[in-house]
């Protein structure tokens, strides 16, 4: 295994800059997830690490070796593709054996290793079938087998679960993570699905427009998003955003949602606003699970009206109207209200976020 270092990497396609000035380090044995919407440069970054694309600028190291000029064949990395890319004219066995044949291993050694991998992935009974005769989940396992069998320095995975149905996807998610820990394999995993990123990654690099917005553990990315984009992209439902105005003074306050409600600001947070703000307009953010709902009014509770209720089984999701804005709040399933009912909400002050409306960077 090895670490992967990317320094000041830029990749263009014609006039389009796919990745801009990217710096990144994937530690040995780490499960790193690139998360972002389509076109953010996450797959391009992966393909540059693999050698299938050559960046115009920057350095890529695998271990201590600069691999910029090395062909994919000699980088000793394995990749799992979104459509699996199993060779249609070869059986599952031949697919898994293919990378070993490239290394000219003896026949019995190849057979031993293919059998070992097949046992780990529970696909021994499928080895004589061709990809066409395998289900999506089985193809996925064969593709994983082909990657694992040669014990590469680094695993690259490009949205490997996207084409599976929801149930299989959540099963494979757990299994992949377990496999990664068992193999202790340095892994770079690309996805646009924040659930996959949160559940599998040791660290997540959230990407947007060819750059990394934030890189951190799932906890850091979820609870301390560095920007409006990260806050909105990670988490389901997305974080509530409301326009906010700050008023300084002896008792500083935030006026949220065009005056719909006003919140007091703690002195240390007021200090941060003074240090970091570039203007006077802000975006207030709070996650739906950080809002408590009450059927009675009370101190620090904000009056609202039920616009929509979505019972999801394990939770109820409410769309609440406050002023001219809609706020989503999550409750336990036994908390039932009807459309049009009055309800009072209380945001958890410790879990509030504030973003500079100009720079979109987090203030707290």
């Amino acid at each position: 295994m090895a670490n992967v270092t990317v320094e000041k990497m830029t990749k263009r396609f014609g006039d389009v800059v796919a990745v801009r000035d990217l710096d990144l380090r994937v530690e040995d044995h780490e499960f790193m997830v690139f998360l972002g919407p389509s076109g953010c440069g996450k797959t391009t970054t992966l393909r540059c690490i693999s050698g299938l694309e050559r960046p115009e600028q920057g350095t890529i190291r695998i271990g201590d070796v600069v691999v910029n000029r090395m062909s994919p064949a000699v980088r000793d990395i394995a990749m799992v593709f979104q459509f699996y890319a199993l060779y249609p004219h070869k059986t599952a066995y031949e697919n898994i054996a293919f990378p070993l044949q490239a290394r000219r291993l003896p026949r019995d050694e190849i057979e031993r290793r293919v059998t070992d991998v097949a046992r780990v992935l529970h696909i021994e009974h499928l080895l004589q079938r061709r990809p066409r005769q395998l289900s999506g989940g089985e193809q996925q396992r064969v593709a994983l087998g082909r990657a694992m069998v040669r014990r590469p320095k680094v695993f690259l995975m490009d949205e490997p679960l996207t084409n599976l149905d929801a149930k299989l996807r959540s099963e494979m998610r757990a299994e992949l993570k377990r496999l990664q820990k068992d193999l202790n394999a340095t892994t770079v995993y690309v996805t646009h699905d924040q659930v996959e990123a949160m559940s599998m990654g040791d660290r997540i690099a959230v990407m947007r427009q060819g750059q990394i917005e934030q890189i951190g553990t799932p906890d850091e990315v979820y609870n301390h998003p560095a920007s409006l984009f990260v806050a909105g992209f990670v988490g389901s439902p997305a974080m509530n955003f409301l326009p906010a105005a700050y008023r300084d003074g002896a008792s500083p306050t935030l006026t949220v949602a065009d005056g719909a409600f006003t919140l007091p600001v703690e002195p240390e947070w007021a200090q941060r606003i003074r240090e970091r703000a570039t203007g006077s307009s802000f975006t207030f953010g709070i996650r739906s699970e950080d809002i408590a709902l009450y059927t009675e009014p009370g101190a620090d509770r904000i009056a609202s009206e039920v616009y929509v209720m979505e019972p999801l089984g394990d939770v109820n999701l409410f769309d609440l109207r406050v002023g001219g804005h809609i706020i989503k709040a999550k409750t336990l399933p036994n908390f039932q209200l009807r459309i049009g009912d009055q309800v009072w909400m209380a945001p958890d002050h410790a879990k509030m976020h504030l973003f500079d409306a100009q720079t979109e960077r987090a203030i707290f």
Partner: protein
Amino acid sequence: MYDSTSTRVLRGTLIGLGLLLAALFFLFPIYWLVLASFKTKAEVISPTPLHLGMFTPHLDNFRDIFGLSSGQTEAGTPREYLGRLINSIIIAGGSTVAAVLLGTLTAWAMARFRIPGKSDIMFYILSTRMLPPVVIIIPVFLMYTRLGLTQSHFGLALLYTTINLPFVVWMMKGFFDEIPHEYEDAAMLDGYPRLQAFFKVTLPNAWPGIAATAVFCLIVAWNEYTFAFILNSDPVAQTVPSFIASKSQTSAGINWGVIAAMSTVFVLPVFIFTFLVRNHLLRGVTFGAVRR
């Protein structure tokens, strides 16, 4: 659509009938040709059409063209026809192999690599097909005479390769575009250099396309008459089409039975080749009709 069973049966019958009529229409000339090859000189030109069963088939025409009859016949000297047939096989076969080989590699490069001005290059390749080859026959004749390429297998095969190459490039590019590049990517990451990835992974999946393309190339080269007539008139490298044509210019009247026998034999190789690759052919010509 919720058709009743009877409507479906009726429609099936009508479609079947239509196909049968079309097949009869297109196969009739072949039928007549094959029939004529078994007739005597008199039977061929009989005022009442003689269909199957209305005459006694005989093999004299075939004996004549393969030089199995004794002495000089109207079909020419013994083995004359066989020599032309071998010329045709060498020239058409050689040019098909060359065109498919070169065209496939070009098409692969065009399908896989970022090449500056690619669409212009592809258009240029296509544009060479935009005027009928006959138009350039005089310059080609002059060039070939200077270069000593007339009356040779190589010269005509080279010409047919040139004529077929654009077709191969365009056809095969379409096929390679349809084969996901991820197969090659995966093979390269599995430890194979680019060209090996192509031969081990992409090429095996391109066989239907190659077979379909090769059939079309072979048919063009096999049937070509004009260039063959102008450039290769000597027996050493003359092909069957111009040889057959020369047989219809005898002073003793045209022996249609012999010509029909030559034509029947001439049609066979392409027929057999097409038959052998028919499964590939069907997949080949419908390839790309369905998105993956």
